[in-house]
Structures are given as structure tokens and as C-alpha cells.
């Protein structure tokens, strides 16, 4: 299994680096905007400082796409044939992809923190705002964790929906429209949706989904992580039962 994961990491790092780069750049841009535009001298407080550091998780949509690409690019370029020839037990192939996507997501999360963290610290001190709060370690750790989890979640979605464009479209529509509408109508489900548990896992819970679900409604950080893994594994198991077993022609 370790060799399979290594092969997956090698495959992805040699072809889809740009998505990871966009994710990290997005985080940096959001962090700059947060400090320069949204934090005002008269309103600056600990939560505002935390929010600036929490921008290192803002690339999560791109990290999810990275996870989707990790699986769907194999179908798109028909290299899945090679994967199944090397490892005819297809469940192992999918498992390796899920593990590899988590590892890659965590690496992207660390990269985002390494770029965004110092940037935020420099900007905050330039504006004479507080540079540190007691929450910063949790926010930083949480953003690494949630970035890894979003990549894993994307891989699960990609395994289930093998078409690259369809998978990305469905994921976007779900996160930006369907989930939103759902939470509007039934606010109580907000803490259980992928975005809700992803937010919970990120350790930064100022608001759950926009301002709809109050922060107190989010599940604990550990439960958010477990649920996010649960969503990804459920998607992967469904994929194994439905799409992965199909003939490769």
C-alpha cells in the first residue's frame, strides 16, 4: 500500500502542481485583503487577528479540486488502465488515492501556512495591530488539518463521479448553492454538511455558513475531522460499489 501511495504522490506532483500553487496564492491574497482592507484600527481585536491567520485555509475549494483531479485525471487520460493493470484489485487503487490525497492536502496546508503566516505577522505588525493571540496555534493547526481533509473529500467525490468536469461542477454547485439553500431552509443541518464539518475541523469557527449557523452550533474540532473523513470514505465506498467496478474499455 505504501508503494501505491508513493506512486500516486509521484503521479500527481508531476502534473498538477499548478492547482496547489493557486490554492496557496489564494490563501495569501485573502490574508492580505483581510489585514489591509477588512481589519480597521478601531475594530481590531483578538478575533480579527485570528481571522487573518485563518485565511491559510481559504484555498480549500482548490484543494478539493486537487483531490477530484487526483482521481478523475486517471479516467480523463485513460491512464486508469495502467493503474488497474498494475493493481487489479481496484479497491486498493482507490484506497491509495484517498491516502495520497490526504497527504498532498496536508502538504498544501503546510505550504499555505508557511506562506500566509509570516505574511500576516508582518502586515499586522506594520499596522501596529497585535501579532499573536492564544488561538493562533489552533487556527494554524486546524487550517492544515482541514486542507488535508478537503483534498481527501475531493478524492472521494472524484472516485464516485469519474467525469472531471461533472465532478468539479457537482462539487461547486453543492458547496456554493445547494448546501447554502439547504441551510437556509433547515439551519439545523448546517453543522452536519461537508462545509459545516470542514469549518469545525479547521478550528476557526467564527461563523459556520455565512452568518446563518451561529458558531456555537458547530461540532467540536475532532468530530469535524472524523465526519469529514466519514464523508470521503462513504463516497469512496459508494464509488467502489457503483463506478469503480465498471468495465474499462
Amino acid at each position: 500500500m505504501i508503494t501505491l501511495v508513493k506512486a500516486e504522490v509521484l503521479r500527481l506532483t508531476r502534473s498538477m502542481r499548478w492547482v496547489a500553487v493557486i490554492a496557496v496564492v489564494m490563501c495569501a491574497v485573502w490574508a492580505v485583503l483581510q489585514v489591509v482592507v477588512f481589519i480597521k484600527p478601531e475594530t481590531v481585536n483578538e478575533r480579527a487577528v485570528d481571522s487573518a491567520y485563518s485565511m491559510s485555509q481559504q484555498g480549500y475549494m482548490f484543494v478539493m479540486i486537487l483531490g477530484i483531479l487526483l482521481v478523475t485525471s486517471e479516467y480523463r487520460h485513460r491512464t486508469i488502465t495502467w493503474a488497474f493493470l498494475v493493481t487489479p484489485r481496484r479497491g486498493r487503487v482507490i484506497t491509495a488515492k484517498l491516502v495520497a490525497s490526504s497527504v498532498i492536502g496536508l502538504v498544501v496546508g503546510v505550504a499555505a501556512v508557511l506562506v500566509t503566516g509570516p505574511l500576516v505577522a508582518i502586515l499586522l505588525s506594520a499596522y501596529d495591530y497585535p501579532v499573536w493571540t492564544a488561538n493562533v496555534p489552533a487556527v494554524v493547526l486546524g487550517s492544515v488539518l482541514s486542507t488535508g481533509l478537503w483534498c481527501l473529500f475531493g478524492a472521494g467525490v472524484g472516485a464516485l463521479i469519474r467525469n472531471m468536469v461533472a465532478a468539479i461542477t457537482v462539487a461547486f454547485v453543492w458547496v456554493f448553492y445547494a448546501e447554502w439553500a439547504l441551510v437556509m431552509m433547515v439551519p439545523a443541518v448546517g453543522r452536519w454538511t461537508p462545509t459545516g464539518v470542514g469549518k469545525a475541523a479547521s478550528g476557526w469557527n467564527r461563523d459556520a455558513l455565512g452568518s446563518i449557523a451561529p458558531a456555537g452550533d458547530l461540532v467540536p474540532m475532532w468530530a469535524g475531522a472524523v465526519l469529514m473523513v466519514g464523508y470521503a470514505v462513504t463516497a469512496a465506498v459508494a464509488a467502489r460499489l457503483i463506478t469503480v467496478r465498471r468495465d474499462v474499455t
Partner: protein
Amino acid sequence: MPGRSATGRLIIVIAVEKLSKRFGDVRAVTDLSFTVLPGAVTGFLGPNGAGKTTTLRMILGLVTPTSGTATVDGVRYVDLPEPMKSVGAVLESTAFHPAHTARTHLRVLSTAAGIPTERLDEVLDLVDLRYAAGRRIGGFSLGMRQRLAIASALLGDPSVLILDEPANGLDPEGIHWLRGFLRALAVDGRAVLVSSHVLTEMAKTVDAVVVINHGELLASGPVDEFGDLEDTYLQLVRS
């Protein structure tokens, strides 16, 4: 003597038994049985759409048979402990990630299959592709892709080679090279099963043939029993 063990017993490497595949209402392959022996090149012949590709993909575990079995060394492909070290497959020339270099493609496969990286240069040399090892596959000609596919199949030094229309897209020199290459693999004692619908190229290459049409077996046996292969083939598929 090809196909026989030291004691003279016939060794069957690939065994296809009563294999059938339906795609919805379409009967792609029906009750097909044949065997492939080591130390020989076996031509798998039939018109376009005869069911050759489906059969080869069933042998390789990519397509699930509706009924019947296909085994390599007595076991189904999915049950082979290290499939890359038993069977090499060349399926379609386009199945590469265009952004990967030839070396990256081979590294991904060898890593997953647990094959040492020293083997990469060996297989690249075998197919005369080392000069392009660091280039992106997106810029490869069809012939280069075909050679890379063959190099990939040889990574595990397998005793069985399965090639689906490997001559497609090759220029005359490439076809000449391929013919010599397949012969050399067979002389080495490997079993080579190669599908084609181009008869002239096959007649000079193969030791045995399996002819199918509409998913059913028409004839099989040593090529010298077929007389003029082209005449016999045309009679078979027209009848």
C-alpha cells in the same frame, strides 16, 4: 520445441474457456475458447469489431466476463500476486498523461509495482526510446507512444506479452522493428499474443493464429496449417 516442458508436456500459458461478454443487447464475445503457448507469437485475428479488444481486456481483468473464464498460468489476472511481473500489456497508444515525461510515466508504474528504478533505462533501451526519456509524452509521435507502451509492458520482465493492434500508427520501419522485437521475445521463451486486422504484417510474424469474427471462434492452430494465411482468413470471415 515451443510450448512443451522438458518432459514434453504441453504448457498452456493463457487459457480462454467458454468466454462470453454481452454489452446490453450486444453479444461482443460468445463462447470463445483458445489457448496460447510459450515460445511463440500467436496472432489474434479478426475484422474490426470482431471482439478482439474485448477478449484481451477480459484476459487482463479490465472487463468482467458475462460467463466463462480467462486465466494466465492457471489463475485469473486479478489473482496474480504481481501481475506486472507475469503479464505485460500494450493496449492503446493514447493512454498517457500528456504532461508526464516518459521517465515519469515509467517511474509511476515501477513504483506502484515494486520494480527497481534501474529497470527504467533497460526498458527504454529495449525500445530505443532513451533519447526521449525526459520529454513530455504530449509531444510524442504515435510510434514513440507505442514504443513507450511496450517499454511499460516490459517493466516487470513478464513471461507473457499481450498486445492489442501494436502496429497501428507505426511507419513501415516501425512495423519491421516490431516484428523483429516480437520474434525475439518469443525466441526468449515468452508467450506473445498479438491482435491485428492487418494480415500481411501478421503472416510474417506469427507461429500460431486464432481467428474470430462476430465474437466467435472461426479457427485456431499453427500458422503453417493455414496455407496462405490471407486466402484462408478471407474464406473464414466471409463464410
